[in-house]
């Protein structure tokens, strides 16, 4: 394996990866222009978990726009099973934040009606396998209403879905359902990998006049970063280079950004200069940022927890190849979960793509080409 290891981004020196915000600050030439911490009422920097950042985003959205309402299973008194909505019912009252009956199609379907009446519902599916009962409402109505009505009826609905595994969850609690949503025209799908993006992307999702599937990586809920809220990171439709490198581009999102950064760090020790892109926006896909990187490195791999067959990585590999074929020195690899149902806790370590698996995959390329 012969690679050029010149990179001007210092490898992160903590096990926690750099956040989008801090990483952006460290990289000069990313395509997107992010101004962090420019809002007047910015709090002093503090250690903030992703959960707390999401909570604050909801709080600020509720405070700013009286049309924002938050409802779903256990999001009121309990504050959600992951405590993302903690305290909101108390602060804004049960007419803004409330526990709905236990029925996901009902939650999504009533959100359609509420949005038609001018509200901006932020609804929660408790775990992503529990969004499936709402599949018809999401795919046949939420995704299609704007198009069906030639833009006369828009549905500013944000659907929060905790997703992915690595939390020792029992069956149905660790699915990665992003491919179902990304293959549905009309939906916007975003996912943060860090607290700053969690705040910023959620605010932008709620402010969007289009429905947004907002996917929250469960295993990152407790990830902490030092930052000041409110924070505005890169725009919702942009990917971000979170670590620069010149030999390979790793494309990751949500829970696997950390994996990619670890792989990059480990790779650096072997003289491999790995660029890491946090996709952030799964639909639309930021072709510009990704193609620019891949044209430079000539090699890429996409990493996700979901099974490989028909997973989101297929779209990434297919479109990046289509658009950059002559720049590629090797096929784009997919380092993903296996093509099996998400396993029980004792087996998830074997299922999940790890930094080692990423590096193994990179070794499978013929580096002489």
């Amino acid at each position, binding site marked *: 394996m012969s690679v050029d290891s010149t990179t001007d981004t210092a490898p992160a020196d903590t096990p926690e990866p750099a956040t989008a915000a801090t990483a952006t600050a460290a990289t000069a030439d990313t395509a997107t222009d992010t101004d962090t911490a420019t809002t007047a009422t910015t709090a002093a920097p503090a250690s903030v978990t992703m959960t707390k950042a999401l909570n604050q985003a909801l709080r600020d959205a509720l405070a700013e726009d009286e049309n924002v*309402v938050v409802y779903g299973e256990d999001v009121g008194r309990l504050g959600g099973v992951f405590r993302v909505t903690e305290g909101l019912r108390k602060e804004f009252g049960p*007419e803004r934040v409330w526990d*709905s*009956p236990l*029925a996901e*199609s*009902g939650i*999504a*379907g*009533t*959100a*359609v*009606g*509420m*949005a*038609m*009446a*001018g*509200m901006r519902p932020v609804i929660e599916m408790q775990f992503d396998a529990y969004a499936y*009962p709402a599949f*018809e*409402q999401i795919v*046949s*109505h939420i995704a*299609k*209403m*704007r*198009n*069906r*009505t*030639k*833009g*006369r*009826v*828009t549905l500013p609905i944000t659907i929060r879905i905790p997703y992915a595994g690595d939390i020792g969850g029992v069956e149905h609690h660790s699915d990665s359902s992003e491919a179902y949503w990304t293959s549905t*025209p*009309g939906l*916007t799908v975003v996912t943060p990998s860090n607290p700053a993006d969690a705040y910023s992307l959620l605010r932008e999702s709620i402010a*969007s*006049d*289009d429905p947004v599937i907002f996917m929250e990586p469960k295993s990152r809920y407790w990830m902490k970063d030092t930052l000041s809220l409110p924070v505005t990171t890169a725009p919702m*439709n942009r990917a971000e280079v979170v670590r620069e490198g010149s030999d390979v581009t790793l494309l990751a999102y949500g829970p696997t950004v950390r994996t990619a950064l670890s792989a990059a760090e480990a790779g650096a020790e072997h003289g491999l200069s790995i660029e890491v892109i946090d996709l952030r926006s799964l639909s*639309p*896909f930021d*072709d*510009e940022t990704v193609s620019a990187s891949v044209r430079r490195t000539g090699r890429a791999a996409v990493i996700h927890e979901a099974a490989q067959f028909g997973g989101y990585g297929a779209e990434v590999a297919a479109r990046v190849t289509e658009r950059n074929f002559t720049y590629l020195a090797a096929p784009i690899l997919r380092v993903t979960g296996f093509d099996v149902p998400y396993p029980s806790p004792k087996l998830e370590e074997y299922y999940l793509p790890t930094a080692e698996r990423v590096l193994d995959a990179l070794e499978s390329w013929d580096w002489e080409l």
Partner: protein
Amino acid sequence: MTIDVPTTGRALPQLQPISFIGPDGRPTDTPTEGLTIPSDRTLTGLYRQMVLVRRFEAQVTHLTRQGRLATYPSAAGQEACEVGATTALSPNDWLFPTYRDSAALLTRGVPVSEILAAFRGDWHCGFDPQEYHTSPAATPLATQTLHAAGFAMASKLKGRHAATLTFLGDGASSEGDTHEAFNFASVWQTPTVFVIQNNQYAISTPLREQSNATMLADRAAGYGMPGIRVDGNDVAAVFAAVSAALERGREGDGPTLIECLTYRMESHTNSDDPTKYRDAEEVEHWKQFDPIDRLETFLRDRGVLDDDRVAEIAAEAETLAASVREAMNTEAEVDPTELFAFVYGTERTSLSEQRAQLEAELAGAEA
């Protein structure tokens, strides 16, 4: 045990459908649960509208036989439900209709060509929902019932005095969404009226294979919501029941379930063949319950309607039919690039690329 539960209004609906005007056009003596018969003026208006929508349905069905529309589900026979319920709405209320409810759209004021746009294949929804306070007609069954509940919830939260009305079929009542909508509406006490047009069939499936309940209105009790069963071919009863339920909702007393017994006189859509699953005699049998005939008799007996007025309305109906034919003769222009225009608020780069591809193809085809 110590469970606090409301115990008011816990009863099953009366078995006999509420009705003011019998099939023979004479007043009935059915108990009407506190409802009052609409005024002569209102009834005359309902008569006129039913005649209009029936002519509309007949004309459109005729055009489908000529292959001029891809598909059309007619509500012929169900005019009392369509017109009675929709007329009960005030302009600020919202209607959540299905594919079966073109007659309701017409009653709501949606122009003929905008109603037909979907069926002749121009665009999925041909009218502006905001203008008519009417949701796009839902094709996925029962889904609209939740939209109606949600809209009414927003109306309640915003302190608006607007109620919602949604139609669903006997078949659609079996879908999970119907249950969820009943439940959400009742728990949230939203101003929503659910009107089941029980026309005895879901395509070919008869009611007895759809439900084992004595009546679909019996569902209401399970949600702590009033449920009533109405003769769905008596427009007076439908109008009175829906008006009262809407008012109840606007007063903050929550949703109501109204089951209207009626019959689909035509095939499910023009592509259906009803001889496979029902007898001609059954259809014949239902003719005696015709909603228009009985009201005409009733109003003539009361001296409110005479030959002149009947002829006048018939003439109006012919004008409407002519406008339907005209709408079908005017070939609507479709712009292929509109495929890309409304998918997202801001057109994505990748969609713009695809638009450019299509434009190039179109230019190539022209050249």
